[in-house]
Structures are given as structure tokens and as C-alpha cells.
């Protein structure tokens, strides 16, 4: 098991390193140069380049960047937030995004599971139909549209919630963005739970358990839900990454200073900020690969068959 874990972790790290190198290299070969040529002559530029280490091989520059990045130093912003160290801006943004995304994940997963289970237990009845319609709407409408709708109705027409995010009233003003973000998770989880549980209910081992006289909570929780949960974890993983990082438009609309908004600003803002794109790219890739890795490992915990198969691979 340990060998399996180490192997996966190692692979993930190598993948991440390759991606970071590609990003770094792409940003380096980008057109443009850091020195305004009309104010400096060629010799001055050459000296400055040598001083900043821009003439070194890309690999050396990359190693330098990585070592600094591991210490939390991603350089300074160039266009937006000019001169401000990126890690101070970034850490604040991560805090905001993670909190709102985290609330959305918890709400979405819990309500989604509940909805899915109720729907599966009442197959073909009203609740099942409701769950289906709900999950269809949730999947078909982007979260920012929900936010626009909620913002218009409950912050503008009925001014109950703040129209924009207010860090001083964190809980109150994160209701609308969290809710709109959680709807997609909620509907996806609900639909998946329902379908998985229905499938497990029809399986031979549940029939056997049923025919041996098992019913009620024990049957649902221990035999059906536990087996239905395994595929749900795989669906949940990309959702988690999306919510932690992909709340781009939601953050932009609601004026939340999160990493999503930073990303949008870095791409579109006043000119494009190479340093931010690089730092955010690394952050996003690391999160994405990290969550995928976690799912891989969690899968082994949830499904004993995979653990056994991994052991067999080692032998």
C-alpha cells in the first residue's frame, strides 16, 4: 500500500514539474522584453540582462524560479498591482476563494446526497421527479447565471443581502455566491447518487441481503450507500477543484477578491501580467493534480478491491 501511495505521489509531482516547466518556458518565449529600448542603449540592455540572469539557459532560470517559488516568492506584479509581491496578494485571495468555495462544497454535497438518497428511495414518485428536474436545471444553467438571478432579486429588488461582497460581513455576504456555486455540485451529486443507488438496489447482493430479511436503515446505509459512494467520489473531485478555483465569473460578478478574479484580471485586466499568469497557473495545476491524487488514494480506501489489485501489482 505504501509503495502504491509513493508511486502515485511521485508521478503526480513529476507531472506537476513538467507542467510548471512548460508554463515557465512559454512565458519566457513570449514576445516583448523587460527593458524599454528607447531609453537604454544596447550595451546597457545587455548589462541589465546579464545582471538579471536573463542570458542564462532556460533550465538554470527555471531552477532559480522554482527554488524561489518553493520559498513562497513568486516575484512582483508587473502591470496590475504593480510592484506588489505576488504572494501577499495571492494568499489573501486564496483565503477568500477557499472559504466561499468550501461552504459551497459542503452545502452542495450534503444537500445533493440527501436529495439523491430520497429520490432513490422514492423511485418513480413525486420526489424522484422533482430531483430529476432540479438536477437538470442545475446542470444546464451556469452558476454565474444563478448568481445574477439571486443578486438581482435578493440584493437589488429586495435589498436583503449586500449587492457586492463585503469582507467585514463575511457570513452574510457569502450566502449568495456560495449558494449559486453549490447548485451545480448539488445537482450533479444528486443525480449521480440517485442513479448509482438505483443501480446498486438492483444488484444481486442487495437482493440477497433483502431476501435474507434485511431492510431499512442498515440495508440502505451499509449495503447500498457505501457502494454507491465510490463513483460519487470521482465526480466530486473535479467539482472541488472547480469550486476552489473556478469561481471566476462568480467572483467577478460579486466583487470577491479571490483567485478567480485575479485570474480574470491577469488575463484581461490592464494588459496581461506574465508573473501572475505564471503563479496562478502553477497554483491551479498544483491544486488540480493534488485533488486528483487525493481521489486516487481515497478510492483505494473506499474500495477494497482496488487496494487488493494494487497489492497484486506490487508482488
Amino acid at each position, binding site marked *: 500500500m505504501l509503495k502504491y501511495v509513493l508511486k502515485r505521489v511521485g508521478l503526480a509531482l513529476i*507531472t506537476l514539474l513538467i507542467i510548471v516547466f512548460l508554463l515557465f518556458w512559454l512565458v519566457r518565449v*513570449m514576445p516583448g522584453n523587460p527593458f524599454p529600448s528607447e531609453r537604454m542603449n544596447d550595451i546597457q540592455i545587455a548589462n541589465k540582462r546579464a545582471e538579471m540572469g536573463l542570458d542564462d539557459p532556460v533550465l538554470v532560470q527555471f531552477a532559480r524560479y522554482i527554488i524561489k517559488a518553493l520559498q513562497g516568492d513568486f516575484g512582483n506584479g508587473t502591470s496590475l498591482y504593480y510592484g506588489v509581491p505576488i504572494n501577499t496578494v495571492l494568499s489573501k485571495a486564496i483565503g477568500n476563494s477557499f472559504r466561499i468555495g468550501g461552504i459551497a462544497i459542503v452545502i452542495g454535497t450534503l444537500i445533493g446526497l440527501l436529495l439523491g438518497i430520497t429520490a432513490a428511495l422514492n423511485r418513480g414518485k413525486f420526489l424522484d421527479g422533482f430531483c430529476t428536474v432540479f438536477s437538470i*436545471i442545475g446542470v444546464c444553467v*451556469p452558476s454565474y447565471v444563478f448568481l445574477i438571478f439571486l443578486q*438581482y432579486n435578493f440584493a437589488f429588488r429586495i435589498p436583503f443581502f449586500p449587492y457586492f461582497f463585503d469582507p467585514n460581513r463575511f457570513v452574510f455576504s457569502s450566502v449568495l455566491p456560495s449558494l449559486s456555486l453549490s447548485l451545480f455540485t448539488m445537482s450533479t451529486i444528486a443525480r449521480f447518487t440517485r442513479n448509482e443507488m438505483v443501480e446498486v438496489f438492483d444488484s444481486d447482493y442487495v437482493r440477497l441481503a433483502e431476501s435474507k430479511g434485511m431492510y431499512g436503515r442498515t440495508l440502505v446505509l451499509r449495503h447500498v450507500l457505501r457502494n454507491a459512494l465510490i463513483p460519487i467520489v470521482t465526480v466530486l473531485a473535479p467539482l472541488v477543484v472547480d469550486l476552489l478555483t473556478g469561481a471566476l465569473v462568480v467572483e467577478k460578478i460579486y466583487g470577491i477578491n479571490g483567485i478567480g478574479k485575479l485570474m480574470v484580471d491577469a*488575463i*484581461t485586466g490592464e494588459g496581461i501580467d506574465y508573473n501572475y*499568469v505564471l503563479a496562478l*497557473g502553477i497554483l*491551479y495545476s498544483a491544486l488540480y493534480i493534488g485533488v486528483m491524487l487525493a481521489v486516487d488514494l481515497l478510492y483505494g480506501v473506499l474500495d477494497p478491491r482496488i487496494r487488493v489489485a494494487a497489492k497484486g501489482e506490487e508482488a
Partner: protein
Amino acid sequence: MAKKNIQPAAAAAQSVYTPVPGDFELLHRRDIRTDANFASQSYWKGVFTHFFKNKRAVVGLIIITVIILLALFGPIMNSYDYKDIVQFRNEKNKRVVAKGIAPRIPGLHKLLTGEEYDDSFKDLTFLFGTDDLGRDLWTRTWYGARVSLAIAFITIFIDMIIGMSYGLISGYFGGLADNIMQRFVEIANSVPRLVIVSVLAIFMPKGMALVVVALLLTEWIGMSKIARAEMLKIKEQEYVLASRTLGARNSHIIFREILPNTIGPIITQVMFSIPTAIFTEAFLSFVGVGIVLPHCSVGTLIEDGFNNITTLPYQILPPIIVLALLMLGFNFIGDGLREALAPKLEDM
């Protein structure tokens, strides 16, 4: 029982076994079913019957057909242009711009309320109203739908070709080639789509090309995985061996012998990729790196609507509804196809 097997399909459909008094009594529970025997039919015919029996799939097909027709012919249904501002000179020879007019149909309005509109546009019909600049939203909505659909169809088609070839080749040759190709896919798959977009935005000017390239770079991976899985399933079959024995070249076996048999799952994947493409396009356009003026897409229309939501709240509704219906339609068709291609016993 043997006699039943050779009955034609139509009769067989009704030939559900009916109990006779001498039999066991049927338990009247809905989840227990009696068997029915069907005559065999060709694979694709079966798929089609199954698909059209699925209510949801048919609804999806109708929705998509209607939207495509409207996207094609909607903009030419009235005299306005998608980028022109509706304006004219009134009786006093003053220029009037039809800015921010809520949806209206004069005849219907008179029928319902008994009174005419009393502004300068009293005879004009705006089914979806006009936007803050005075452009007709009906025309713009369907023009935007056309742009969004065109982007989705073109990119997904190219992605399908790339992904399919990649997956089939990787799966067919196996061994070292497969190993290298799959490592590449793994790495490509680990790069979040947003990171790709952000790096692209540095290289390319914003616009349709950016959206297309971003989608080209990301969407082929899913197709290649499915194509490879199908290839691994099929390549062990006897007919492939027979073809090889007869001296067929690898390219012939891959693209002429095996590809037609993998097409079903790939088309299903295409149906699920199209909404993703539309979603991504809408997102990029909303953020502002997508479609540029004077063109519009569903995404830019939603953004326009959002910018004017406090003053012209009706403006955001048409593009949102079109977007949601597109998602719904393609998802329904995809689900229907998947079920029709691999029917479970229970659905028979």
C-alpha cells in the same frame, strides 16, 4: 417457446406471456416483469427505435432542431440587422433611437389591454425588445446562437477527428507507442483548462480564434480515451485477425475495419462535448476574451444583459434561456444515444 422466437417483431411486441389458470399466479408487483421475445433486427435499426422510444431524447432532438432552425433563419425573419441600431426620423424630423425597449408586439398589446403604445415606435414589433444601444434583441439572440453553435460544431468536429485518430492509433499499436502516447495524454489532462486559456490569452489576441484554439487543445482528450478503450475491446476480435491474415495494412484495419465499430460511443461523447464547448465559449465571452464586437454570441449577450440588469432586466433572459435549452437538448440527446447504444436489460 421456440415458435415464439421466429414471430415478426410487431406481433412479438404483444406476445407477452399471458398466464392461464393452470399456471402459478402472477405476483402483482410492478418491479417484477414477465419476459417478452423479440425478433432480431439490425444494430442501427435497433439503436434508432430505441432512441426514438426515449421521450427525453426526442424532446432533446426537437429542442435542438428548433434552435438550429431559429439560429439559421431567426436573424432574417425581420428587417433589423444584428449590429445596426434601430433608428429613424419622426414627424418632427428628429432622430429617434429605439433604445432599451421592452419586448412588444403591438397587435397583441392592443388585444390584451385595448390601447396602443403611444411612443414613436408604436408600429414596431420587438419580440425580445431592444438593448441599451437600440439593437434588436431577437436578431442578436439568434445571431449569437448561430455563432455559439458554429464554434461548438466546428471545434468538436476537429477534436473528434484528432482524438479519434490519436486514441485508435495508441490503442492499436500498444506497447511502447501506447505508453508514450498515454503519458502525454496524462500530462495534457492534468493541465486545468483555465491555465491553458490564460497562457493562450498571452499569445493570441482575444476573439473567436482564441476560443477555438482553447477548445481544440482540451476537448480531444476525452474522445481519445474513449476511442482507445473501444479499440482495446475490438482489436482482439476474430475479424481483425482475419483481415490481418489477408494482408491488410495497419491503416486499413484501423480506419476501415475498426473505426466504423467505434463510432457509436464516440458520437455519444461528441454530444456531451458540444454543451461543454458552448459553456466554455459563453464563459470566455462573458469574461471578455471571447467573441469581439460587433459580433455577438450567447456569452457576450449574457454579459450585456448583466451589465444592464438593473435598468433593462428583460435583456438577459433570451440568451440565458437559449443557453439552458442548448445544454438541456444536447444532454438529453447524449443520454438517449448512450442508452440506445448500450441498452440495459431493464430498459428493453
